[in-house]
């Protein structure tokens, strides 16, 4: 038993004690394989489900399928597992920044099952976010199992996310970059290496089981200078579509909230609408990879108008699915919408400038995808590397970089926060490493208490108080009532005029000079709020009161001192 126990705490082994990098790499491999397996399981079951329902696609009642799927998935999340809806990426980001990457064990499969139900029955959503969530949860729980600390756990959470993305797209670099750019938000050497290894493990798992299949490897993508110029237009268009989609997704959420009913009924309503939309534009159903493939290969024959309508229909379908309570991510829909946008833009170019020999439409579809990913996720590198890896060539590199960076920049004007972190930013919960918010959140009031204040009683005479003044070091004297409860503060500055007036010594009682309307701090107060109060009121010190008793003082000087230590410890 003891032996088993020591097996579970590898961080205490002599070998890993001095430096945990090797340990993290080892763990990264395990996590990468596990999350890769989870990703493959989801994509396999999705394929099976979609294949199964494909046979019934001619029946009239088929529009009810997305409703059933969304209702089931909502029911599963809300009643069986009691987890909130949503795609999970913000939850992972928040957990990484606030709770050292602690994620519940059930999260490792909850989103897998629910998104499988939603998407498999035809809902418009992506399997990537659920896979990232479960990969992250797997990483977190493996870290917990081995008693790793917060920093190591965060790395493993990143490993899980990277392994999942790497496995689902067969794109190890994209997995790694996505994790650094979106999930962790910092590029530190300690993290990059295990995460890169986990990416490799995830991708390798997928290659072993599914085969090394690079989706669009045989495309010829020779872009000319004129295509490069067109890219700027495409970037602007994808940016507009990204903003449209972000707003639509969020507004749909507010609309659906107005419908006061059980969450699974709401999800079913959204699903029904998606199903009806699917009658007209069948491409909007499901994750949509078949549509992407058709578009990139150039076998998607519809004209400009149909493609443009399809792009908007997909946006609508995704908002209906996710906004009304279905489960899944926006990554795959982004890719679908991106390729629709790229294709539409290509069609438009051909109509406006028929004499120019444009590169094939598949290339524009790919560029559109990169533009969408960069715009919505505000993660340009993820967009670039994902496309490079799924095409298996770097020929499109230049236009890719142009589209991605311009799209990100333009979107940033209108939507400063990416879709994943928007809610967090609004709640003030986006705490990227090394930022002011992060440092202030990590520090707690209890750590900053100063105990060198002398507490005096309310009924003390001024003469006794003078003796206290002689022996104390601070300019603040907390006062307590007879029963020990906090009564207020005597400020040294305010009693200065009476200090040398011996007549006053027996004439004043502390009660008469105490300031009983001071602002106090509680143990649970947010440090940023405390600092704001200090700034607004010109205070340098505030008393901390707990259970109506004086606990200590908190002052700007101590906060700065600890802030600096914390910043140093966090960033180096």
């Amino acid at each position, binding site marked *: 038993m003891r032996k088993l126990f020591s097996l579970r705490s590898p*961080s*205490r082994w002599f070998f890993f*004690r*001095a430096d945990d990098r090797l340990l993290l790499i080892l763990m990264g491999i395990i996590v990468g394989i596990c999350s890769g397996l989870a990703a493959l399981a989801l994509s396999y079951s999705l394929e099976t489900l979609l294949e199964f329902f494909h046979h019934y696609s001619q029946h009239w009642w088929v529009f009810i399928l997305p409703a059933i799927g969304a209702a089931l998935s909502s029911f599963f999340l809300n009643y069986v597992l009691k987890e909130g809806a949503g795609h999970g990426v913000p939850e992972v980001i928040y957990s990484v920044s606030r709770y*050292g990457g602690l994620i519940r064990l059930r999260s490792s499969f909850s989103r897998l099952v629910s998104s499988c139900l939603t998407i498999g029955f035809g809902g418009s959503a992506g399997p990537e976010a659920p896979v990232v969530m479960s990969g992250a949860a797997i990483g977190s729980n493996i870290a917990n199992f081995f008693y*790793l*600390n*917060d*920093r*190591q756990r965060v790395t493993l959470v990143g490993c899980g996310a990277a392994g999942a993305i790497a496995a689902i797209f067969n794109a190890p670099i994209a997995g790694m970059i996505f994790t650094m750019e979106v999930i962790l938000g910092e590029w530190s050497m300690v993290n990059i290496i295990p995460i890169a290894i986990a990416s490799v493990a995830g991708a390798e798992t997928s290659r072993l089981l599914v085969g090394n299949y690079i989706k669009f490897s045989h495309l010829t993508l020779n872009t000319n200078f004129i295509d490069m110029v067109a890219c700027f237009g495409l970037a602007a268009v994808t940016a507009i579509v990204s903003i449209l989609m972000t707003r639509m997704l969020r507004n749909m959420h507010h609309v659906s909230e107005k419908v006061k009913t059980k969450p699974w009924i709401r999800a079913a309503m959204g699903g029904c609408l998606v199903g009806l939309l699917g009658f007209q534009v069948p491409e909007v159903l499901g994750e949509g990879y078949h549509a992407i493939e058709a578009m990139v290969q150039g076998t998607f024959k519809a004209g400009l108008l149909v493609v443009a309508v399809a792009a908007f229909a997909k946006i609508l379908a995704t908002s209906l699915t996710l906004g009304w309570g279905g489960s899944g991510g926006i990554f795959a829909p982004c890719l679908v919408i991106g390729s629709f946008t790229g294709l539409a833009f290509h069609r438009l170019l051909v109509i406006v400038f028929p004499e120019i020999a444009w590169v094939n439409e598949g290339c524009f579809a790919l560029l559109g995808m990169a533009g969408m990913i960069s715009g919505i996720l505000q993660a340009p590198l993820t967009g670039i590397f994902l496309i490079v890896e799924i095409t298996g060539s770097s020929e499109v590199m230049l236009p890719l970089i142009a589209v991605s960076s311009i799209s990100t920049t333009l979107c940033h004007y209108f939507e400063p926060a990416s879709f994943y972190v928007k809610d967090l930013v609004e709640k003030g919960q986006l705490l990227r490493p090394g930022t002011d918010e992060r440092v202030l959140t*990590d*520090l*707690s009031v*209890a*750590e*900053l*208490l100063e105990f060198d204040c002398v507490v005096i009683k309310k009924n003390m005479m001024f003469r006794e108080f003078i003796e206290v003044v002689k022996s104390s070091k601070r300019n603040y004297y907390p006062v307590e009532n007879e029963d020990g409860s906090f009564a207020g503060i005597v400020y040294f500055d305010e009693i200065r005029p009476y200090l040398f007036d011996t007549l006053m010594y027996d004439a004043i009682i502390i009660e008469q000079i105490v300031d009983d309307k001071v602002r106090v701090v509680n143990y649970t107060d947010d440090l940023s709020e405390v600092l704001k109060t200090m700034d607004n009121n010109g205070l340098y010190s505030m008393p901390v009161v707990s259970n109506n008793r004086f606990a200590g003082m908190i002052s700007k000087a101590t906060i700065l001192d*600890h802030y*600096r*230590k914390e910043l*140093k*410890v*966090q960033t*180096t």
Partner: protein
Amino acid sequence: MNLSLSELAKKLNLPESTVERWIKQGRMPVHKESGKCIFNKSSLIKWASKHNLKFMIFEENNKIGDDKKELTFLSSMENGEVFYDVKGEDIYGVLENAVNKISSFDENQKKDLLAKLIERENLTSTGIGNGIAIPHPRVPVENFSESAVITCFIDGTVDFNAIDGKPVFILFILLSPSTKEHLSLLSKLAFCMRDISFVEFLKSKPSKDSLIEKVSEFENKS
């Protein structure tokens, strides 16, 4: 080595909760195992210096400083000497004769001290009234480990430009290694001098033993 959380926090001069959180977050090279913090001393010291922190491993040795005898007027009197019938026409003459009598000083030290005393005297008189003067250097005396009070009964009296104009019959030369000790000594001396009976007692030119006995009476009173 291993320490408890509170010991480790004390050595790092950080709040316990901060150390606990940093260990949990994996920010410092310390492992916690059944309530003990286990760490490699050298790597922790390296970590601490990298982050502008100090790890005071030899704290036990620093405690010796706290055992230092508390400074009192009495102990300073005992450290110093008592001279009777110091001659002199004016301030300078009296000071010169007094300083020359100090047995523990060599010629250079005497010259140095005299110059410093005269410099202070030129600033304002150290005659604090009731016939008492307390000559002292403006800055603490170098290479001087313990405070001393040198008591000099003057042969007759000397005009010292004292604040109350009375001629001075006794000098207390205050020598202290730091300003803080000087102030503490001064305040204790002033406490004694405020008492008229003590001044009367001084006028009787008591022996060193009886003087010290009287001072210890006062010390106990305050």
